[in-house]
């Protein structure tokens, strides 16, 4: 009893002291900051409202994955169901297929798509003619800016039974292929089009790293009798390896994050087996079949994994290269 009362008096004493300190120190500082930066805070208001409305309110809305949500009853009125939708997903046949497809597309895109901009940058770096180099750069960056709808439209058009690709196959003596009826062809087509669209754009960062190399290094190597291949191995490559490592690690953090926009433009039920990824499934279940809670649960599961991957990747990057996202 005694000790509690003394504790309480301590607490009361603390309560009496703290606010006064606050008013003079902390509170006064806040007030001063608020007054001095009032226009800055005025500018921050629409920004804060934006982030809260379009990011944090939806993040709060993720709770519907634990409810049997119906728009009529809202979040407040919908019954809680715990992990029911997560369990439903984990035990469904989609679970394995979606994870397999998401990871496979990521890994293939990494194996084929990651080296492409590096090779392009190295080849461009060996070009002496400035005009030719600039032309190649302009043309290889261009596909990055072309609308996905156009890209997907072109892919479907070229892959049609009487399309350009099949014309080439027929001219070479092969038989025409129904590319988008056979699940085997989706991944190669997807990866190839990704490389077509992104290799040039991706090379910018490597070209920047290459242009930062001190020319004196090359001059010294030339005097020592090093050939161009030798210089490539001993000077050029080592100087872009830090960039390569950072981008590789960050890419690992995106392993389970395959965008759905291109996939939902391209796929059809005949090739869901290889084409359907987590994000496209979330879209189909949530916004086409209106399984709000189920789709949110699947999306939340994916977001949590993405968060863990990106935090891990960033921690590794920080350790290896002293470079991090934040």
């Amino acid at each position, binding site marked *: 009893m005694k000790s509690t009362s003394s504790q309480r008096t301590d607490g009361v004493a603390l309560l009496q002291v703290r606010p006064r300190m606050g008013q003079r120190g902390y509170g006064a500082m806040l007030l001063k*900051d*608020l007054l001095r*930066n009032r*226009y*800055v805070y*005025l*500018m921050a208001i*629409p*920004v*804060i409202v*934006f*982030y809260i*409305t*379009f990011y944090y309110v939806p*993040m*709060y*809305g*993720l709770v*519907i994955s634990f409810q049997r949500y119906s728009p009529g009853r809202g979040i407040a009125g919908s019954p809680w169901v715990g992990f029911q939708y997560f369990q439903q997903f984990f035990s469904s046949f989609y679970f394995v297929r979606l994870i397999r497809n998401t990871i496979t597309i990521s890994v293939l895109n990494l194996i084929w798509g990651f080296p492409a901009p590096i090779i*392009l940058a190295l*080849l461009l770096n*060996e*070009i002496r003619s400035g005009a*030719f180099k600039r*032309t*190649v750069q*302009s*043309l*290889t960056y*261009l596909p990055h*800016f*072309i*609308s996905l*709808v*156009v890209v*997907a*439209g*072109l892919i479907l058009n070229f892959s049609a039974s009487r399309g*350009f690709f099949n*014309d*080439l196959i027929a001219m070479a003596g092969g038989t025409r292929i129904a590319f988008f009826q056979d699940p085997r062809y989706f991944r190669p087509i997807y990866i190839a089009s990704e490389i*077509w669209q992104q290799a040039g*754009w991706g090379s910018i*960062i490597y070209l*920047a790293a290459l242009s930062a190399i001190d020319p004196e290094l090359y001059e010294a190597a*030339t*005097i020592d009798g090093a050939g*161009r291949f030798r210089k490539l191995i001993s000077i050029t490559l080592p100087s872009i390896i830090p960039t390569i490592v950072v981008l590789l690690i960050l890419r690992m953090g995106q392993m389970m994050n395959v965008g759905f926009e291109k996939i939902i*433009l391209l796929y059809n039920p005949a090739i869901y087996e290889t084409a359907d990824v987590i994000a496209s499934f979330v879209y189909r279940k949530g*916004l086409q079949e209106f399984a*709000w809670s189920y*789709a*949110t649960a699947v*999306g*939340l599961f994916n*977001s949590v994994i*993405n*968060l863990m991957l*990106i935090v891990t990747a960033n921690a590794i990057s920080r350790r290896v290269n002293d470079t991090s*996202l934040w």
Partner: protein
Amino acid sequence: MTVGKKTIGENVFDVSNTLFLSFLCIIMLYPLYYVAAASVSDGFELMRHTGPIILPLGLSTAAYRMVFNNPMIVRSFFNSVYLVAVGTTVNLIMTSFAAYVLSRKNLYWKKALMIMAIVTMLFDRGLVPFFLTVRAIGLMNTYWSVILGFAISTFNMIIMRTYFLTIPDSLEESAKMDGANDFTILFRIILPVAKPVVATMVLFYGVARWNGWFFVMIFLRDRLRFPMSLILREILIGNMADTMMGGEAAGDIGDHERIADTIKYATTIVATVPILLLYPFLQKHFVKGAMLGSVKG
């Protein structure tokens, strides 16, 4: 200088490197060239043709006449122009506000605001909750759904902030002495100095607005408001003949079928040309912007 002397191996490498990169350029450009050439081809010849197109197959402007006489397509083009103009303006204002706030020194809440922004890059808000939120606010079927919903791209905002941080304080300090408030400093001093990053933002946001189709698709119900990307999607992906022909199903069916492919190509060109026209002007800026993005904020 030893540079002048080239070994045979180097010569072989240089020639094959140039050839390879030239071939790469052809691959990059050919799909677009194919579309352009096919769009001015005669529909009937195009149908009979197989294999690569080197030159247009008989010149015909029929497809473009169909496209420009199709009220749906023309309307969607101007819808897109509106969406890009208003959307990019909102993007620029909001992004520069955020970048300005986060580039201040001695701002007590700066760190909290920075965390608020960064968290959204790390953790997905969820497609369904985002959709439900926009719907609950009452933005369904309005352009404001996408204009406000995507007012700031945190990635772009950090690029802008990084650039703002490189601007010397002395510039704004003299203005502050003269009693200028932060709005004046941002619009009169910072933004004019930061022209390269503003140009980069216009390009990044403008292209994203012009090309964007997914969120407009889920938020817009009224076809009269569809931007070009959605009409293009109906024509290219959905193969919707009605959209292509502007609803006038009258006339010879065979005739329509004959021209259908060329209309696809012509619409693609009309939707892509604005970007191609801006591309040379903006290119010098976006390279800088893409590199800024790689610099840690």
